[in-house]
């Protein structure tokens, strides 16, 4: 009977008790003939026991309160109003008190949430969609690289939606700046060269936000949030085309994550 040669991996797996019964018998038979090796195995087993014993008390300790999930989730939920916004609110209240209520329009906080995202998406559409020389920085051929780039900079997993089923081809994308941090901008075009962009960035609020339509000049946009990631689709196409497209993107990104 020939036995497969005993390897160092077999020795380690024997120590960790991860060998199948048949192989284990072979390795043990081998060890019985090699006392030096057998002794080394015993030392290594003892080492494992000693390590487990040394650190077992840590896992048996009660978990400190600051490490309980309920506390950590609660800490995240606490609204983190930027100091200037809090100050602005205080000013508004004070002004309201002395009859300056009329100023609320000029002092009101800037757009937030999906509205802000829609505005950013429109601004980026206006700048990049008409660009004939360099509409995107990274071409569609590197869509994996785009996804990696966006995921790294947005600090969460971001996919590149495929709209080819609706007749829109991915041209590519770039990273853009928004008042709320970096955003990923993707650009698509159809067979006639009609372009549309999609902006994606993390939202301040976790969870979903319903889709909203907005118009700027000739462009129409749809913005929504899903799982804390905001999406803004903007294009000059007919809303009858764009709206179903936005719905489709929302559906596919939901199944991806």
């Amino acid at each position: 009977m020939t036995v497969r040669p005993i390897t160092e991996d077999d020795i380690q797996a024997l120590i960790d008790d991860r060998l199948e019964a048949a192989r284990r018998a072979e390795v043990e038979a081998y060890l019985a003939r090699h006392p030096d090796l057998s002794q080394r195995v015993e030392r290594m087993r003892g080492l494992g026991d000693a390590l487990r014993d040394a650190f077992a008390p840590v896992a048996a300790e009660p978990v400190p309160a600051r490490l309980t999930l309920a506390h950590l989730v609660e800490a995240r939920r606490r609204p983190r109003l930027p100091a200037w916004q809090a100050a602005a609110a205080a000013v508004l209240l004070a002004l309201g008190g002395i009859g300056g209520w009329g100023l609320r329009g000029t002092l009101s906080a800037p757009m937030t949430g999906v509205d802000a995202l829609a505005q950013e998406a429109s601004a980026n559409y206006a700048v990049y969609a008409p660009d004939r020389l360099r509409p995107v920085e990274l071409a569609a051929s590197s869509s994996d690289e785009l996804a990696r780039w966006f995921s790294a900079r947005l600090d969460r997993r971001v996919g590149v939606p495929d709209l080819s089923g609706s007749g829109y081809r991915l041209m590519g994308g770039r990273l853009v700046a928004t008042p709320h941090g970096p955003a990923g901008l993707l650009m698509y075009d159809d067979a006639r060269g009609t372009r549309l962009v999609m902006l994606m960035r993390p939202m301040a609020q976790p969870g979903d936000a319903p889709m909203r339509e907005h118009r700027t000049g000739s462009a129409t946009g749809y913005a929504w949030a899903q799982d804390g990631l905001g999406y803004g689709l903007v294009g000059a196409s007919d809303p009858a085309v764009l709206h179903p497209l936005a719905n489709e993107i929302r559906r596919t990104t939901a199944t991806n994550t």
Partner: protein
Amino acid sequence: MSDMVRLIEPLIPALRRYARALLRNPTDADDLVQDCLERAIGRWHQRRADGDVRTWLYAILHNLAVSQMRQRARRGTSMPVEDAPEAVLAVAPNQHEGLLQRDLTAALDALPDEQRGVLLLVSVEGLSYAEAAQVLAIPIGTVMSRLARARDRMIQLMDGERAAAPAGRPLLRRVK
């Protein structure tokens, strides 16, 4: 949400154990676990639905630990054991057993970082080789070879410590 609590909460004691074994200072270790949990909560939706929560959490923790150890190495700050309050030491060195553990932990600290991670994940945390490979983002073959080297090195270090200790002198004086 309740899913998240149900899946993560039972793993916290083990995460604390791994962090303590890597960093040794209990406060630093718990800070690390807190960072890890905050990230896990923030990225819960990004987790691969088919992925294993346990390896995912160990991977987050391990990566945080690695960057912290690198920072430490750059700053070159470390607390001499003589100055460390008793609570900082993982094990109270009061008996013969304690001395052996001090040898053990000193040898563990002397291991190269990449060997220490593998050894702890497999021996103490009980991860399979495939899981350890996933946590460390290295091939299984590399897990196996690092594991063998880590064990040999540990034994060598511990033998060396004891063999080099003059008879009758308490070993803990020699621990750096």
